[in-house]
């Protein structure tokens, strides 16, 4: 219990604000100061905050597109293989490659694969389900789902410095700044 062999590494510094406006102001101040590895936590979704954080559009549409194309090719290829190569069969004198008949299944598999890529890709990109997050170690962080706004500067940021970053955050009108242990 006591005397851990390793000092807990720091995930970052979290600053607390009591409104959306002060939070956005702080994000802008910190970005101007050169910080990039940061994330904000608000009690409700806010487009203004994600805009301030300069969220990049996600790669999810590309993943869904690729999933759809793979699904389409699978659907068509499967039927072509079954009907024209593996078990060629004369159905009412129609050609073995009766492609018009295969479009419905091709279409369905396109949708199916695209839908699966959307769900699985979403989970892969956002890292959910995530039962543990270092921020939970900060007791006051529970208020993020009530009425407080948090900004976390992560220690992976090249500019991160325990003293300097804390000073920057306080200068940006943070109510409180806490260490986040991993």
């Amino acid at each position: 219990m006591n005397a851990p062999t390793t000092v807990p590494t720091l995930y970052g510094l979290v600053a607390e604000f009591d409104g959306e406006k002060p939070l956005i102001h702080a994000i802008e101040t910190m970005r101007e100061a050169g910080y990039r590895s940061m994330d904000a936590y608000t009690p409700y979704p806010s487009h203004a905050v994600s805009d301030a954080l300069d969220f990049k559009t996600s790669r999810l549409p590309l993943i869904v597109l690729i999933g759809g194309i793979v699904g389409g090719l699978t659907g068509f290829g499967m039927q072509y293989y079954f009907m024209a190569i593996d078990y060629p069969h004369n159905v009412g004198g129609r050609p073995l490659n009766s492609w018009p008949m295969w479009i419905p299944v091709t279409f369905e598999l396109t949708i199916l694969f695209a839908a699966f890529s959307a769900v699985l890709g979403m989970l892969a990109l956002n890292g959910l389900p995530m039962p543990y997050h270092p921020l939970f170690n900060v007791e006051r962080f529970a208020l993020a789902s009530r009425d407080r706004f948090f900004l976390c500067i992560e220690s992976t940021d090249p500019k991160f410095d325990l003293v300097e970053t804390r000073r920057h955050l306080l200068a940006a009108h943070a109510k409180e700044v806490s260490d986040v242990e991993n």
Partner: protein
Amino acid sequence: MSATTLPTAPELWDRIQPYALGAAAIGAALGLLGWWLSPDHFFQSYLWAYLIFLNISVGSLTILLLNNLTGGLWGLAIRRILEAMAQNLLVMAILFIPIALGMHHIFPWANAEHVAHDPLLQKKASYLNVSFFLIRAAIYFVVWNAIAWHLRSVNIRQERDYSRVRDRRLRTISGPALVLHGGMLSFAAIDWMMSLEPHWFSSIFPVLVGVSQMLPAMALAIWTLTRQAANPSFGPMISKTLWNDLGNLMLAFVMLWAYMSFSQFLLIWSGNLPEETIYYLRRIEGGWQVLAWVLFLFYFALPFVLLLSRDMKRNPNRIAAIACIILTLHVIHHFWLIQPSFGAHETPNASPAPAGDTKGHETKKEPQTAGETMEDVHTPGLRAHWLDGALFLGIGGIWSWSFLRGIRSRRMLLEWDPAWQEYLAHGRDSHGH
């Protein structure tokens, strides 16, 4: 791309309206000449050009009724434009007169000589006869115009003095009106398009036509809105989200069109019955297959791929370009639907058509029992007549002139509508992401 070379909305309409009138005059003069020189071609080209514009008007009415039922800001943004298209149904009722006069040049079943040699058409005569056809046409136009004028008059009253009760009543009446309208457009599609080849039948065809009407109506509404939004006093009212919604609807109509077109083709292809396949044989041989490919690539594949992208839908200039592609292809689609029917019946049983032995491979797959129906495959290859262009100009000129009058005569914004006020107040960028 961002700098628009065209003038913005109100001035643009002022500038192009005289051209529409000029096109109408040139088209009318050439059309009269054609009527005298070659009545067959005149009436056939007339029907083609007429249906291009009629179908946009009918489609606009469908979208208006749909929006009354579903709600949605996208409908408020283009309501005035759609109403202007729907009001053109009155003009189209008048322009129907030449079709009524020249029916025997257009429809094989209206040609007594032809019917005398065709036992099947004699059996169908209880529906396909001249007087019943004209009565039905009158009913379609009365119902359509009644709906269009009712929608317009309710909106004029709302503009003067908004009432929630009236709004709800409009919604209540739009349901039955849409059902009635669906019946009208289905029978109109059978009468004016399917009966061009009176032996052929397809139960999905009226739905296909219904979708083919909404797609160009939506495209023209979007294009018109982009020109209005180019005006700085109007543009900021239309948020990126609203453009996105409109683009998604156009994408839905593109997909619905492809779905209906392919469903009809698949059923006929897999059934492989001569009386059904003949419709496609006429449309995939003799050069018509080029148009079929053009339709697949540019009426479905290209708009489909482009409209998947958010950036395309959210940029008014880009979505305007896509709308222009769709409108162009709408014209080609009607050419491919309607024109191959003509000529197939010019010589019902008599002299063999020229170049009859050069049928493509498709016909070889046909069962031997095809018999007399196969005679009809001899259709002239892909060709256009100068009257096609003349009457397209003429009817298009009249339609466009009246449409421009419609969108100039009334305010384009629905400032009085509470949903629109709500949107302008705080919805513009936060609704529906």
